């Protein structure tokens, strides 16, 4: 999960990485209030969890409170990569003499932590890595190692930090590394690290991405108001609902409700639907070994989503058992009812038991099953996907 700039700058401050004094505002009037008391030009930065903010016009400069209010209003009405701007960060405008890049990230291929530095800051580091690999300097460390000041200082020297600032910049790099280690980060970046005209180093922009699976160790984040979220963009209301129910779920822009078992086939099934000419309305995964209640809730999410025209169900019981799955589906059918056509396939662990349960329930309440086409291991999953695409097409009346 990615942090907002204002959140990651708070972490920077906690780790003694120099940042500007700043304010966060949710309305243009708040912006006016802050800027009124600031001497000098200010920069207004839209807070969004996506890249390319600068190019998209999400950063504006202003002289004085009035201009700031006007520009903030513009920002707060913008969408960047489709994501609404809900807040604006206000800082004094820096006088830039030079920009550097410093980052710490995972080198997953080699199972290392790598510190990356470049004399070319403020630009896309991945682009620099491709176009000018000679301008990028790295230091790889095993997870058990510390970053020593002499190594940090050598990096600082290589990227051309002026000599009087070498020691200070080495500590900035070390502190960034400490932040990375302390918060189980996947990526922390200062881009750019600005050298101002009066020879101060300041982290002008910041990026922090944390390992979702380690957030439980960092209770202070919650105290800071930092909640689990996507790497890019905030959760939609339905995603938030699913998250609270413990269901990995994403809204997509199609009309086929995806009700698969397993994240892997959740991803692949999404492709299959596209291959066969359809578009999924969502991604979903049941999580490992779901209880019947969770299965039922998965169907609620789909059935109540007005975009969904037909449902593609697939269950290959592994750690998740077909009997629990069947129990969940039946629970949903009885308590909620299915209003959309569904085609599904079920096999895997305890499939016989699952089939038996479906048959019994159907004998009891055949009307609950009228929208369901049921298949077992004998039908390739591709056929099921094709049928779901057909059903959605029919439903759309095409």
């Amino acid at each position: 999960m990615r942090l907002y700039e204002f959140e990651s700058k708070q972490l920077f401050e906690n780790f003694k990485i120099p940042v500007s004094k700043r304010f966060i505002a949710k309305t243009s009037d708040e912006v006016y209030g802050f800027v009124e008391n600031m001497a000098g030009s200010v920069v207004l930065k839209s807070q969004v969890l996506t890249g390319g903010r600068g190019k998209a016009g999400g950063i504006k400069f202003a002289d004085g409170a009035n201009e700031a209010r006007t520009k903030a209003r513009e920002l707060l009405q913008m969408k960047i990569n489709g994501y609404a701007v809900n807040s604006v960060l206000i800082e004094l405008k820096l006088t830039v003499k030079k920009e550097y890049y410093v980052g710490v990230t995972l080198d997953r291929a080699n199972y290392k932590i790598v510190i990356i530095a470049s004399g070319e800051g403020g630009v896309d580091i991945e682009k620099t890595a491709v176009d000018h690999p000679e301008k990028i300097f790295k230091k790889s460390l095993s997870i058990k190692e510390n970053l020593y000041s002499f190594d940090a200082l050598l990096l600082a020297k290589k990227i051309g930090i002026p000599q009087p600032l070498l020691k200070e910049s080495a500590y900035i790099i070390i502190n960034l590394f400490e932040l990375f280690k302390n918060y189980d980060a996947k990526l922390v970046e200062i881009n750019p690290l600005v050298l101002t005209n009066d020879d101060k180093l300041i982290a002008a922009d910041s990026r922090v991405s944390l390992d979702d699976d380690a957030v439980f160790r960092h209770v202070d984040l919650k105290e800071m108001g930092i909640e689990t979220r996507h790497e890019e963009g905030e959760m939609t209301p339905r995603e938030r609902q699913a998250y609270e129910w413990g269901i990995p779920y994403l809204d997509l822009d199609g009309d086929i409700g995806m009700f698969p078992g397993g994240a892997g086939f959740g991803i692949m099934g999404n492709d299959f639907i596209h291959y066969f000419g359809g578009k999924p309305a969502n991604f979903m995964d049941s999580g490992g070994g779901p209880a019947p209640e969770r299965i039922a809730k998965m169907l609620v999410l789909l059935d109540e989503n007005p975009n969904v025209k037909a449902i593609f169900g697939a269950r290959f019981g592994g750690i998740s058992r077909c009997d629990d799955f069947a129990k969940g589906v039946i629970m949903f059918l009885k308590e909620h009812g299915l209003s959309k056509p569904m085609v599904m396939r079920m096999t895997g662990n305890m499939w016989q038991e699952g089939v038996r349960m479906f048959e019994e329930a159907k004998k009891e309440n055949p009307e609950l099953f009228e929208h369901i086409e049921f298949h077992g291991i004998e039908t390739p999953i591709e056929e099921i996907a094709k049928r779901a695409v057909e059903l959605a097409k029919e439903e759309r009346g095409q």
Partner: protein
Amino acid sequence: MAILCDKNSKVMVQGITGGAGKFHTERMLAYGTNIVGGTSPGKGGQTVSGKPVFDTVVECVEATQADVSVIFLPARFVKEAAIEAIRAGIKFIVAIPEHIPIHDMLYVREEAVKAKATVIGGNTAGVMTPGEANLGIMPDIAFAPGRVGTVSRSGSITYYVADTLTRTGFGESTCVGLGGDPVLGSTFDEILWKFEEDEKTKAVVMCGEIGGVYEECATETIRKMKTPVLAMIGGIYAPPGKRMGHAGAIVEGKMGTAKEKLDILAAAGAHPCRTFLDIPETLKKLGV
């Protein structure tokens, strides 16, 4: 012949007294897997499915000569559990749990490399050598002994691929769940090379997905292999920046798109497949 495990593997289960541990121990035993015991700190002396429980791996290994361990524990305990197994001399470890913190896995990997041990996972369905050993949570129904190896980041994909191979008569030599986490105990290239060295394996189906770099890292190995490699990649139509179920399945920046992975693998000589049905057709064409 098989890779990683067979009917002679002496398998222990870490977390054997937990709900999932108990359930799957029973299932693995029912399949014929040679389960010899397990651990649960503070519960040494009990038994599960007739197998002895120990407080520590060292004690279990001493008493049972276990040489493989399957971990069924909450994710936050996997780091210590895997390191415990490695230090106790276990050379093959299957880490079933999902959501293992990335930094934890870096520690595990470091210990494993040092001890020349193989760790599979986290977030894996396990490893299956049909007819011999079922380590993890894979459903028996999909599998039959045969001549194609599979390695996948996803459990469900493993099942669908095996299901397809079984239905079409190829069967599987060994099926390896690499795991869905962002940092894994083993990489595609390491498993591919084990298949290359396995006589029984005539072809390998490799199923990757968006996120991470492990598919990309396999290209050199694929180039060197004589055994043909078929490649599927999930997530061609995945949205960027959104974690798709697996912690590892997320396109971050320009890293980890499915399209690029498939292109790179094809360039290295792998045979790309779009759907499962492409697999038997490709195998037939290759004369496997």
